[in-house]
């Protein structure tokens, strides 16, 4: 939606604007002047507003919907499940399984489930009306957590409350556990986490005849497009989805906007006027998706030197009441469950269970942070059990070229994880601080200090055959003024896609950035280049953009508009002449599975990801043993992500991801009562302020460029979410180890939880 107007006083004439250059964010000036257009900023004549009446109970049967007195109901547009049926629409949100209704139909399966939609021009009256709708419900017993779901005390969904079960097996299923020198077992839990994008979810819908247009804050225009075509049973061209400027997403605007777009569009259809729904913060936090809570049970066998012989994981995610994206979140979690280690015998059983809670969904990392947290925590605890240094235990087990990962994937890159770990630990002065803190901590002061680290990886792009099924397309086309326009459905949500794609084209064609324009993410204009998720935009879509740009250049050469070699001015001139002669020239590029990648969905064997980003994060903390508050004093994030396209933007991704990872570990706790979030306010759901964080020190290694990424780039966006939590818990344990045995196994480590753990360790 961004108009790239020119601003005086901003120098963009940099010598190198291609790959590896920290060019300034393209849409920066609009964001700095308040000109960026987010969905709530749009002025629309005749527009009315929509609100949602939601369930207050987790599970129940709707007996009646009553509209209270004192409200001029005849002025309102009202939509319920009955209206959806009467209109002949399809009351199911398109996803992996069609089990989630747009509006509850008879049965309520989770608190905050939408039941009635209302629209009116007067927002104050609308709010009164929302409160005046009385939904009479016969409440039914509810299943509210993983343990209840597994016990199957009450069926919720799936088969026996399972939405998905995955088994990954490698090596000898009859591994002789009794003969191993060391066997270590442990259970680890992580809590839900709110994405807390600063712009809440919002959507505007307009209906003309039988054509629907929605504009909103969203990550995946074509997900919304498909959802609306199925809801209204419309052919594709009659639905148009446009992304407005988007104020953060982090996965939280991956699948939820499909529901919100359906709601706004149904109201607009009935009202015959544009309808806008903007959630306020409390509603957004209470009803939209969160990071899945998890429970991991791990058992590992080691030889006398600490080499991993066998590993078993029982990994469970709380999916909530409907399937949504949970099967694929589970898949990524399961594949990452072994961490970056070599192990000959592996059995990973992963399950996504159904509960009567709002569906959990995508959040940066997508299941991997949960399973990696468990494994990294487990490795530290195992090291302590075996009397081994945690660094040495990693050294004995880290993956190297030629090793096989859990799914049997061969490590083909020249991976130097040990070196990466050593360099990160040196950045932190891990050994020096560890020794100094050990001396300090036995002293009398209330403040104790510790250091910790984690080693981990993140698979780039969709899992397994995902990219093959998506078969993403991008295009590059000519503009009359001699510039080029990139056609991609990838969305800018702060990560820097506009800038990075521009740099990729700039590099491929040897032209300056200002000769490249990004088409708005508008399904009428751009092909389906897949969702903006899974650390895939730069690596997968960026590569397609590069191919399309090079293809367009070939077309210009073949049709003799361009002679090589050529400078930027000759290129601009060639584009202009071609455009005059032939009209718009467009070159499309479609994803093709690289040769040599093999994946079997049935057995979960093969190349789970085309490549991986690798990292070691180190952290220093101080723990106040009076208040049990943890302060992060220093943070080192060192990673191998192939070629870095824009170092400043890339560092920004890592810094932001680390802040979210620390929040998940220390402060961010979703409190619920009877399946409803009760701290759904920024006042009592605590995220980091500038004062809570140190300067996060980011280091990129570019030793292993990915041959099939643009310029050698791998994916980056999710990686930084994986490492902070296990590292910071290791550091806390290091700070408090002198107080006696204590194993921190659950996130977040709030001061209350820390005090409990210390008291439990003392046997109090």
């Amino acid at each position, binding site marked *: 939606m961004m108009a790239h107007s020119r601003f005086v006083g901003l120098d963009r004439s940099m010598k190198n604007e291609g790959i590896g250059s920290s060019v300034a964010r393209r849409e920066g000036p609009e*964001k700095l*002047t308040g000109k960026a257009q987010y969905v709530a900023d749009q002025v629309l004549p005749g527009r009315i507003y929509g609100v949602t009446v939601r369930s207050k109970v987790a599970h129940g049967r709707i007996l009646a919907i009553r509209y209270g007195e004192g409200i001029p109901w005849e002025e309102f547009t009202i939509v319920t499940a009955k209206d959806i049926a009467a209109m002949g629409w399809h009351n199911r949100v398109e996803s992996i399984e069609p089990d989630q209704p747009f509006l509850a139909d008879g049965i309520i399966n989770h608190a905050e489930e939408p039941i009635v939609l209302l629209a009116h021009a007067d927002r104050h009256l609308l709010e009164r009306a929302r409160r005046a709708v009385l939904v009479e419900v016969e409440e039914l017993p509810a299943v509210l957590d993983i343990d209840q779901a597994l016990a199957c005390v009450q069926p919720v969904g799936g088969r026996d409350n399972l939405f998905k079960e995955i088994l990954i097996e490698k090596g000898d299923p009859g591994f002789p556990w009794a003969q191993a020198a060391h066997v270590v077992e442990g259970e680890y839990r992580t809590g839900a986490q709110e994405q807390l994008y600063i712009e809440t979810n919002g959507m505007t819908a307009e209906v003309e005849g039988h054509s629907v247009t929605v504009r909103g804050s969203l990550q995946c225009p074509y997900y919304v497009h498909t959802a609306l075509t199925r809801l209204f049973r419309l052919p594709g061209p009659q639905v148009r989805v446009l992304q407005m400027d988007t104020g953060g997403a982090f996965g939280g605007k991956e699948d939820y906007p499909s529901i919100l777009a359906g709601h706004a569009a149904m109201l607009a259809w009935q009202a015959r006027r544009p309808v806008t729904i903007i959630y306020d913060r409390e509603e957004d936090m209470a009803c939209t998706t969160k990071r899945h809570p998890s429970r991991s049970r791990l058992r590992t066998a080691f030889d006398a030197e600490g080499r991993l012989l066998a590993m078993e994981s029982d990994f469970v995610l709380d999916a909530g009441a409907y399937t949504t994206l949970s099967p694929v979140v589970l898949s990524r979690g399961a594949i990452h469950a072994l961490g970056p280690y070599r192990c000959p015998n592996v059995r990973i059983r992963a399950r996504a269970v159904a509960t009567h809670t709002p569906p959990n969904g995508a959040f940066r990392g997508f299941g991997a942070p949960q399973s990696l947290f468990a494994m990294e925590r487990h490795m530290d605890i195992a090291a302590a059990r075996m009397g081994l240094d945690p660094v040495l235990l990693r050294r004995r087990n880290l993956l190297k070229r030629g090793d096989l990962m859990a799914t049997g994937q061969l490590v083909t890159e020249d991976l130097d994880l040990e070196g990466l770990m050593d360099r990160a630990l040196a950045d932190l002065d891990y050994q020096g601080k560890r020794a100094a803190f050990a001396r300090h901590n036995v002293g009398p002061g209330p403040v104790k200090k510790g250091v910790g680290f984690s080693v981990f990886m993140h698979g780039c792009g969709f899992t397994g055959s995902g990219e093959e099924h998506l078969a993403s397309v991008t295009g590059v086309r000519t503009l009359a003024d001699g510039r080029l326009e990139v056609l991609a459905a990838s969305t800018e949500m702060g990560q820097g896609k506009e800038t990075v794609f521009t740099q990729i084209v700039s590099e491929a064609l040897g032209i300056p950035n200002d000769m490249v324009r990004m088409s708005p993410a508008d399904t009428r204009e751009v092909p389906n280049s897949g969702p903006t998720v899974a650390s895939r935009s730069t690596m997968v879509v960026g590569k397609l953009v590069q191919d399309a740009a090079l293809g367009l250049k070939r077309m210009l050469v073949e049709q003799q508009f361009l002679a090589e070699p050529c400078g930027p001015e000759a290129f601009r001139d060639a584009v202009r002449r071609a455009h005059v002669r032939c009209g718009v020239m467009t070159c499309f590029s479609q994803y093709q599975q690289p040769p040599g990648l093999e994946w079997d969905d049935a057995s979960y064997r093969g190349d789970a990801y085309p490549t991986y980003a690798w990292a070691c994060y180190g952290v220093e903390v101080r723990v106040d043993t009076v208040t049990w508050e943890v302060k992060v004093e220093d943070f080192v994030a060192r990673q191998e992500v192939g070629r870095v396209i824009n170092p400043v933007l890339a560092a920004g991704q890592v810094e932001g991801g680390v802040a979210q990872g620390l929040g998940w570990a220390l402060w961010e706790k979703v409190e619920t009562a009877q399946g409803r979030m009760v701290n759904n306010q920024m006042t009592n759901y605590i995220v980091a302020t500038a004062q809570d964080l140190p300067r996060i020190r980011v280091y990129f290694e570019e030793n292993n460029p990915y041959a099939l990424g643009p310029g050698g780039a791998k994916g980056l966006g999710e990686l930084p979410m994986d490492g902070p939590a296990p590292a910071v818990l290791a550091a806390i344990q290091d700070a408090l180890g002198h107080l006696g045995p204590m194993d921190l196994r659950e996130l977040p480590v709030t001061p209350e939880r820390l005090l409990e753990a210390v008291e439990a360790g003392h046997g109090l």
Partner: protein
Amino acid sequence: MDSKLQLDLTVNGERRSVAVYPMARLLDVLREDLGLPGTKEGCGEGECGACSVLMDGQLVNSCLVPAVQAQGAELVTIEGLALGGELNPLQRAFVACNGAQCGFCTPGMVLASVDLLRRCAHPSEAEIREGLAGNICRCTGYVKIVDAVQGVRP
């Protein structure tokens, strides 16, 4: 309580007059009645700072200020910083340092930075972190924002 009042104020150097309900939030008056949507709503309860503006030289959360309290006030919003289309040095530093990612906290963050720099021309990193602690950013981890405030060149 249902009758509107005539609100006279100066916004970004311009005298403006609008009829609004006395208890309307200044945030809504700015966004809807004065046509200045650059100021954002993040939480509606004064916690996130996205709606920060300067009122008579003071940094305020405009979601917590009733219109009646802004009678006669002088306001500065994000739209008032680049008058004539030229980014001011602070805005330029935010662009150059990647201090804005998604951009939604940015207007409030920039106004808070203006306020900080007025009180303290050359703040240390610790002073910046304290000065901006009332503004939540979910994207950046704050490093590049600190860089921007430290990197302002007139």
